[in-house]
């Protein structure tokens, strides 16, 4: 068994090494003081209490500094971990211009990064008439009341409220069983919601850091999806136009 942590990041490794080195040095200093005191006792020399107390106080201050440094390092590592998740989620959302792949990425983020077991993505239809269920995963028969088929007809209180005001809602939501209802926006305009109905069994609740991921989905998921849809539509129209031109030329 090796207690040495895996060092995939040289910067993190050097920070940990520094803290460990400081701890080691403090321990050596403590041993040296003890050895010195023992030697003085054996030689019958009275131990100079004044400087020793000052040394002890400095040692305590240094130990407190090391502890604070270690805590700051741990906090930085947690922050780096969160930023990694956010970076990868953003990167992957914008890595494709195929609508199906963007939806797949939203699903992967919901499952793998958020820990969602059941969720739906509801989007406003073109022309603003009604809402479509663009993506649904893990739904059971008991969820069919609101999210069956390809259309969302309304009725789920939490979802309706967010579709009306564009505000992110987290459980407990009055009169709603949703875990989270995330507004999906394109350039600030509400175009739909991501509704999380249930989390994976080993994830009892959303954590404070999940809020950053939900905010990211709110800002990026719909814009990535709409960009992909616009491109797909333009591509289809271009191909139709090309076919018509060929037909007109008799090719």
């Amino acid at each position, binding site marked *: *068994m*090796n*207690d*040495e*942590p*895996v*060092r*995939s*990041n*040289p910067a993190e490794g050097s920070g940990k090494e520094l803290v460990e080195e400081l701890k080691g040095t403090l321990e050596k200093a403590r041993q040296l003081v003890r050895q010195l005191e023992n030697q003085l006792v054996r030689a019958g020399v009275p131990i100079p209490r004044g400087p020793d107390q000052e040394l002890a106080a400095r040692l305590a201050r240094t130990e407190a500094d090391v502890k604070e440094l270690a805590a700051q390092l741990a906090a930085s*590592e*947690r922050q*780096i*971990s*969160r930023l*990694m*998740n956010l*970076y*990868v*989620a953003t*990167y*992957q959302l914008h*890595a494709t211009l195929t609508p199906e792949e963007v939806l797949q*990425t939203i699903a*992967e*983020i919901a*499952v*793998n*990064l*958020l*820990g969602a077991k059941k969720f739906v993505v509801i989007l406003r239809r073109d022309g603003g008439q009604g809402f479509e269920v663009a993506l649904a995963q893990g739904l059971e028969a008991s969820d069919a009341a609101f999210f069956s088929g390809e259309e969302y007809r309304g009725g789920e209180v939490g979802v309706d409220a967010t579709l009306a005001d564009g505000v992110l809602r987290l459980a407990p939501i009055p009169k709603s069983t949703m875990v989270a209802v995330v507004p999906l926006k394109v350039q600030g305009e509400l175009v739909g919601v991501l509704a999380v109905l249930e989390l*994976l*069994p*080993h*994830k009892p609740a959303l954590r404070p850091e999940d809020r950053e991921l939900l905010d990211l989905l709110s800002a990026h998921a719909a814009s990535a999806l709409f960009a992909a849809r616009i491109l797909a539509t333009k591509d289809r129209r271009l191909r139709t136009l090309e076919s018509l031109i060929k037909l007109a030329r008799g090719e």
Partner: protein
Amino acid sequence: MQPKKVLAVDDSKLMLRMYEVMLRGTPLVLAENGLQALEVLRQHRDVDLVLLDINMPLMNGLEFLEALKKEGRLPGLPVIVVSTDGEEDQIAKGLAAGATAYLTKPFDAEKLRAAIAALPENP
């Protein structure tokens, strides 16, 4: 342990990208299913750690572990199963199939590093 080369197996592009970011600095090879992973392992004999998803097309994680056993690569090669399935019986099934450790999704870089560091040097 401190791996020299890691094979990450997952049908999610997001997860493969996540491993690339989390394990930067460590040589990494990728596969999208168990079948592809077996081929990658044949090409990269120096892989000394596998991060393995369970639910994948063509060949799932448990089938991959069975294939590794048949090839005589287990228990010599440490395998961390990384799955959304956190039920006790699923974890037991993964470990019984030859996995060295089990990590549930979602996880962060800290948890992944801790799981790798906790692996025995010679499984």
